Structure formats: C-alpha cells, structure tokens
C-alpha cells in the first residue's frame, strides 16, 4: 500500500478510486440556469494527493460535493470502487459517506457541545474499523487538548480536530474543501502538514480543493478548473513540504 502511494506516477501502480465521466451540473437559481460543471472527465488514484485548483465559481466545490455523495450530477457518471454513485439511493449515499469518506470543511463544522475527543468519537462510534480517537488526535498533534470544547480551541486547532475526525474512521478517501480558507498562513501550514502526514502514513486518497495556487506544490497532481471545465492537469515531480510553500 505504502509503496503504491509513494510511486503514484508509475502507471502500473495506479488503481483508480474515482472514475468521473462526462459529469455536468446545472443549478436552477430562480429564473437563471447556472452551469456549474460542463463535462468533467477525471480519474483519481488510490493513495494520491490531488489538489483541485480554481477561482471561486469554477465548479471545484460542486465536483467535490458530487465525489462526496452530497450532491448528484445532472448528467454523466461517477464511479467509486466500481460502483455507480450517481445511481445510489439516499440511504446508500449515507452509507457511502459513513464508511468510506472523510470530510474536512472550510469552517470546521465541529459539534460545539462535544469535546475534541468526543467530536471524533461521534464518528468512530458508527464506523466499521476506526482508530482510537486519542490516536487520531495525536496524529494531528493535539494529544494534550482531548477534553477541550471547540469554544476553547483556536481556529487552527479546531481544523486539526476536524482532520482527526475525518481520518479516525480510516476512510478510503479524504475530501477537503478549502481546509485553510479560514486560517492565517502559519496556522494553515500546520493544518496542511497534518493532511500530508495522514496521506503519507495511512495512504489515504486525498483531494483538497483550494483557490490558493501555493498549496498546489504539495500535491501529486494538480487539476485546474475554470468555468466548470478542467483546463489543465499538472503532475509535480517532487512534492514540496508544507513548510516550503509560499502563499
């Protein structure tokens, strides 16, 4: 597993996790039709760290929501591990999110009435083969903040709890929507380091969406989106450490 993750560019080692084909998404906003995605074809590979880069309105969040089973495309197909997400029922999508996907959000979305540890336990209690919540918090360097409530944590700490919550169930994919969007650069780096560590050590397929081009350099692949289309795909020869990033 780890070998594969370390050599994502080797075509022989590529196992497709997501197969996205001809996906379009049209929103009806009042009388105006918004074409958020206009025919996306994309494969994401196992263990890969992908950054989806684009300006706001480029369609990157819509794509992530469809990958995460929160939204369904107007047209096209999304296959996950051989199954068709676009044909899944509401119940199956809930199951999919519950057992296979870890989410990290721009605004953390922690449960304010639960401590750091409990925010993780709330997910591990319903997962199939989770890690210990304490273990997950140690992975993000918060082993000493177990019993703090969200209101007692800084923004960066809250986001790291959110990452720990996302990885604690040992998900197959980790989907992050602007994880550093609400943070200053210094705190942002700490959060990205946590994401990178998870990707490296656990081999979790990771997709991060951002409008911050600087982050792109830590990814295996960078997918550029503009106006609902993929405009460009870059592969990084060498991934930079988060501390080396400039933004």
């Amino acid at each position, binding site marked *: 597993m780890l070998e594969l993750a370390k050599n994502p560019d080797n075509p022989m080692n590529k196992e497709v996790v997501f197969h996205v084909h001809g996906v379009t998404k049209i929103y009806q906003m009042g009388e105006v039709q918004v074409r958020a995605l206009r025919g996306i074809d994309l494969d994401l590979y196992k263990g890969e760290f992908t950054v989806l880069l684009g300006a706001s309105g480029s369609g990157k969040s819509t794509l992530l929501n469809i990958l995460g089973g929160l939204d369904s495309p107007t047209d096209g197909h999304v296959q996950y591990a051989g199954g068709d997400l676009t044909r899944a029922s509401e119940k199956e999508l809930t199951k999919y999110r519950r057992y296979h996907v870890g989410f990290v*959000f721009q*605004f953390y979305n922690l449960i304010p*009435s639960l401590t750091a540890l409990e925010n993780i336990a709330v997910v591990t209690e319903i997962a199939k083969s989770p890690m210990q919540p304490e273990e997950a918090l140690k992975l993000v360097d918060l082993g000493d903040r177990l019993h703090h409530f969200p209101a007692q944590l800084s923004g960066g700490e809250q986001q790291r709890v959110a990452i720990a919550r996302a990885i604690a169930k040992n998900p197959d994919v980790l989907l992050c929507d602007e994880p550093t969007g609400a943070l200053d650069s210094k705190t942002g780096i700490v959060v990205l380091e946590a994401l990178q560590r998870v990707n490296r050590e656990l081999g979790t397929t990771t997709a991060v969406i951002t409008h911050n081009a600087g982050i792109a350099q830590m990814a295996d692949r960078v997918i550029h989106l503009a106006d609902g289309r993929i405009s460009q795909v870059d592969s990084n020869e060498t991934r930079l450490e988060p501390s080396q990033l400039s933004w």
Partner: protein
Amino acid sequence: MQAIAIAMVIVSGVGIFIMSLSTLDSLYETRESYYRDNHFAHIFAHLKRAPLSLVKRIEAIPGVDKVETRVMAYVNLDVEGFEDPISGHILSLPDNSRGLLNQIYLREGRLPEPGRDNEIVLSEEFVQAHKLRPGDKISATINGRRKALTIVGIALSPEFIYQIAPGAMFPDPLRYGVLWIARQPLATAYDMEGAFNDVTLTMSRGTNEPAANEQEIIDRLDDILKDYGGIGTIGRQDQFSNRFLTEELKQQRTIATIFPVIFFGVAAFLLNVVISRLIRLQREEIATLKAFGYSDFAVGMHFIKLVLLIVGFGVIIGIGVGIWMGKGMSNIYMELYSLPYMIYVLKPKVIIAAALISMAVAVMGTLYAVYSAARLPPAQAMQPELPAKYHTTLVERLGMQRWLSQPTRMILRHIERRPLKSLMTTLGIAMACGIMMVSGFQEGAINYMVDVQYGMSQREDMIAIYTEPASKRSLYSLESLQGVELAEGFRIVPARLKFEHRFYRTALHGIEPDGSLYRLLDTNLNIIELPEDGIILTDYLAELLRIKAGDMLTIEVLAGRRITLQVPVAGTAKQYLGLNGYMRLESLNVLLKEGHSLTGALLKVDDRYQRDIYAKLKEMPRVAGVVEHESAIESFYDTIAETILFFTFISTLLGSSIAFGVIYNSMRIALSERNRELASLRVLGFERNEVAYILLGELALFTLVAIPLGFLIGYGLCAYMAFQFDSDLYRVPLVLGINVYAFSALVVLLSSIVSAIMIWRNLADLDMVAVLKSKE
C-alpha cells in the same frame, strides 16, 4: 408555521378569557334581569297555616315593600306511560295574574282560568323531559285525591332556576316538576280558604339590592309566624335555587381567573423564545440598518410591530373563538338551568382587557430581546457569533459518562446550556398536562361523591316521605308490601343550630343507630357508631360553626313545639352533600318529647317488585312522596353529560394546543439553531433517524419530565378548585382517578408525537451543501 403556532396559543388564551368572562357576565346579567323583570322576592317563609288577616302585620314591618301569600304543597304526579314516582311542587297563582312576586315566565299557552280546578301551568323542564304539550293531561294526587289536570301553559320561574325535589340531591326533570294552579281550588283542597302557608316579600330599598335591615325583617317575620307553624324565614341568598346559581357563578369566576393566566403565561414564553431567535438570525440586517443610520428606537419598533402583528392576529381570531365558545357555554347554562332566555353580554372592557393583556404580555416578553438587538453596535452585529460554550453536565461528572453515547451527551449538554429555556419548555408542556387533568377531575369528583353518598352511606333503594309524622307502627305496613326487604324509619326536623354567635339552618336527622341503610362515615370511610346521646355533625358544618367534639350545641327546633335544646357534639362525619346533624332516632324522640314518631322510611326492595311497590306507595295517603336515587342519578348524569363533554372537548383542545404550541415551537427553534451541526452530522454519514434522535431525544426527555410535573401541577390546580368550590351545599372531593392521569398524559404524548413527526419531516430538508459553505 411558527407564527401560526404562536397565534394559536394566543387564540386559546384570548378565547378562554373571553369565553369565561362573557359567560360569567351573561349569567349575572341574565339572572339580574330575570329577577328584576319577574319581581323575584327578597325574603321567603313557609308555615303551617295562617289567616290572610296576618298580611297586614307583615306589611307593617318597617322596610317591607310588597307581600304575597300563597298556598303551596308537595304532591305526587302521574304521567301516562311513565311508571317511576314523580313528585311535584304545586303553587297557587292569583286570578288572572302571573303573580305579584316571583312572577312566572309564560313560555307557551295561557294562565289557568280563575277558579278552574283542572287547569295548570307546568314547568318547562318537566314538560320537555316528558315531551308534553299544552292540552295534554297529567294527574296529581292532591291531598289524597287523584285529579286529572290539563296543561294550559308552560312556564319558568325565577324561584326555580335550579330545580331539585326536596330530599333529592340532583335535579331530575323526569321525576320532579313545578306546577301552578288557580288559588281558590288549591286552597279548598288543603283547607286554606282565607289562609296561606307560604309568604314571600320584597324590601322597599331597591328591587335587587338587599337592604341593610334584611336580618331584622327576617327576625320580625319569624316572630310573627312562630305561632302559625313557621319553619324559619330565609333571605334571598339562602333561597335554594339562588344559592346553587350563586355557587355556580363562583366556580365560573375561579375558572375565569386560573385558565387565562396559564395561557397568557405560555404565550408570553413562546413569543419570547421565537423573537429572540428571530433577532439572532437578523443580526446582520440589524447592523446594516444601523450602519445606514437607523436609530435604536426605529430598529426596536420594527420588532415590536412584528410581534404586535402576530399578537393582533391572534387576538382577533381569539375574540371570535371566545364569543363562539361563550355563546355555547351560555346556552348550555340556559339549558342546564331553567332560564327563559340568555342575554349574551360581551362587555367592551373584556375585549379591551384581553387585547391589552395579550399585547402587554407579548411586548414585555419580547422587549428584552428587542432591546439587546437595538443596542448592538453595527460592527459587532456583522460578525458571526462565537461558537457556543458548553460544559460537561452534572450527570456525566457523576460518572455516568461512559454509558452515554455522543448524541446523548449532545442532548444533555444542550439542555444544560439553556437551563431556563429547558425549564420553561418543560413547564409549558406540564401546564398543558395540568389543564387536561382539571377537566377529568370534575367528572371523577362527581362520581366519587355519588359513590360515597349513595353506594356507602345511603344504601336504601327508595325513601318514602310521610305527609305527617307517624308512629313506628307505620313501618309494618311498609314491610308487609311484597318485595320490601327492609324498612328503617327516620325522623327529620328543621332546626337552627347555634354555637356562640354562629348559626346554621338545616335539618336534624334521627336515624336507627344500628341501621344498615343509612350509615355515617368518617374521613377514611369507616362507619361511625352513633352515640347514645350527643349529636354528630357533618364535618364542614362543625368547621362552619367552629365547634368541636365535647362542645355544647344549641338546637332551636323549628317545628312542633319549637323547643330549644342543648346537646353535646359527639363527633363529625364526612359528607360531600349538604350539612346536617345526626342523632339516634330514639334520643331525638326523647328530646322532642313527642313519642316515637317518624317522618319517613328508608326501604330496601327486591328489584323485581320495584314497580309494584311504587304503585302501592302512590296509593298510600300517608306517603307524600317517594324518592329514588338510582334513576335520579342516572338522569343527572344524562343532564350533565353534555356539559362534561363540552368541557372535556374544550380543555382537550386547549391542553393540546398548549402542548403542541410549546413543543413544536421549541423544536422548530432548536432545529433552526442546530441546523448546522445536524447537517454536519448528516455529511459525516449519520442517517436521518440518528440525527432526529438528537432533537427528538431532547423532546422526549422534556415530555417525560413534564408529565409527572404536570401531574403535580394538575393536582395543585384541582386542589385549588376543589377548595374554591367548597360550600355548605357541597364539598368537592379531591379524587383523581388513574384514568384522569392517563388521559392527560396521552393528550400530551400525542401532541409530542405530532410535533415530532412534523420535525422529522423538516429534517429531510436539511441542506448539507449549504452548511459547508456558511459561517456560524
């Protein structure tokens, strides 16, 4: 939807306020006008026989305005096709007149022709109960002689708004009627030509205001009538029908004060909760308005207007509902009592009060939230609110934590973070439960009264009342009737019981000490043994006279030789109906020095012979009337069934609207406040049911705590009402059956379930995508 739920609570509050007060005003107004228009007398006296020449002496009493003498008697009636015994109260009417005082209200037909001995006017309730019409015939046994009488008119009388046969405990229009006949034939039948046995009078000062010298007139009249077999003069406030009506109005007043207070309290709480929430959601708009230069006052007014709009809407509908329910209630009262008409009164001040109280309560409840919104500096208002602060709860700190799942912890911590709101929500639901209990309580209390009175204390099947006191031998002729299993004699003497300066006019009962048909009970329903000498008083009477066992009671006998006795009080007995004194029959006869005489007998009979026994008793000239409880109780239940149904319907409506209003509103607010975290959990893979648990678990917890709390509140409300309803006529026992608790809990549970279903459906609309992109 939430505005509708709030409006619903206000509608209920205003509705019940207007219903109660307008019914009360209508009853007072109707009674006043009825009394005034029909010259209801101020003072009433009954006597054995006095010559008409005595009227001059009565008229000479200072303060007396008009005097009217009558001939009256108790008779047995017969209606074809109806076999039960019927007792009647027959009164004389002056020629071509509805009477000088206590004028009858002729609903249909005409007055009897002067001198005609076969024409009567009959009370409307009786006519309706038997489906009779003018022109129909009934027969009466007048002074031992059976006579066919033609109904020529149907009437009501201010004297008989509440109609109860002497000796009976409940109104029974099938077995008791009032009839009026021309004076001359009635006088002839009872040897009252040139004489009278009943006198009523009005006092000169005003027609409806009792004058200050009422007691003086009563004493003077008592003095005059003493030599003519007077059995005591009473004022209007002691007149039986008027007494009952007054008690009923007192009950109405109690209800009219308790219920609206509860409803307005709940409405104020809900408004407060909703408006606070609304303001929190509109922080940014408020800030924008203020940044544009709107004043605090202008922003505050905006919310006040919103609140007043919802409340105003509720008030208007509430007034309509209140009038509808008030008219319904008034009509029920009109039917329940013999009132000729009902003047529905809705005083403008009641409407104004309802509107002002609602508005004031609503505005006060929201003022604080509005005040803090208006005061918010614009820059601060534009910032998102900080994450809410939570703590581990007491339950968890006590070591229960390891057994609690994370969602359960969320529930507990959320409740603990807003203790006041949680408490108010629980209290609101509990109030709904309490209100429900009040309606069940009335029915249960009546059942218990009947059970104790007629199941345990008075166990006879029928009572034969004699025309004149008779010797103990009279029992033999009763016992010899086929089907009579047991006959026990009793003696009832009218008397005035006095202790220190307090007195009470009632009846002294002489009963068999080891009889099995009439038994006195103590508070625990154990049988009290009658002492050889001494008197047992109804507990409430002892309280009224402030007399206790061992004290000497003064008894002024108001019949026969009218002697005054001193008798020690031996104890008290628990009784829910009436106030009486009890002695051994033998001891009473010894004290009265009138030999062994009885005024009636209690009979236990074989059911199969009941009809025959009635028929035979009717034929006995010495038997003035037969009272039978079972059918009286049945018909009483028929009479009040509609009223009870209406009350239950109204209180169920009100109780469930409170429960629903409180539950749905608090849940709806909780949903909108916690929308974000619930949607986040859905994103994390929680199913709708699992997310619903967090909201509905809280609701379930509130409901489960609220129900026992509601039982306590309901018990308190019922106790308060029972205490308020207590009078010398009856005491309402505080008996709450398991069914009362069960029904109240059921209504609350159903309201919870309906709210829960609606909330569960709302959960389907949680927008998972939106919450990921929004700030707190």
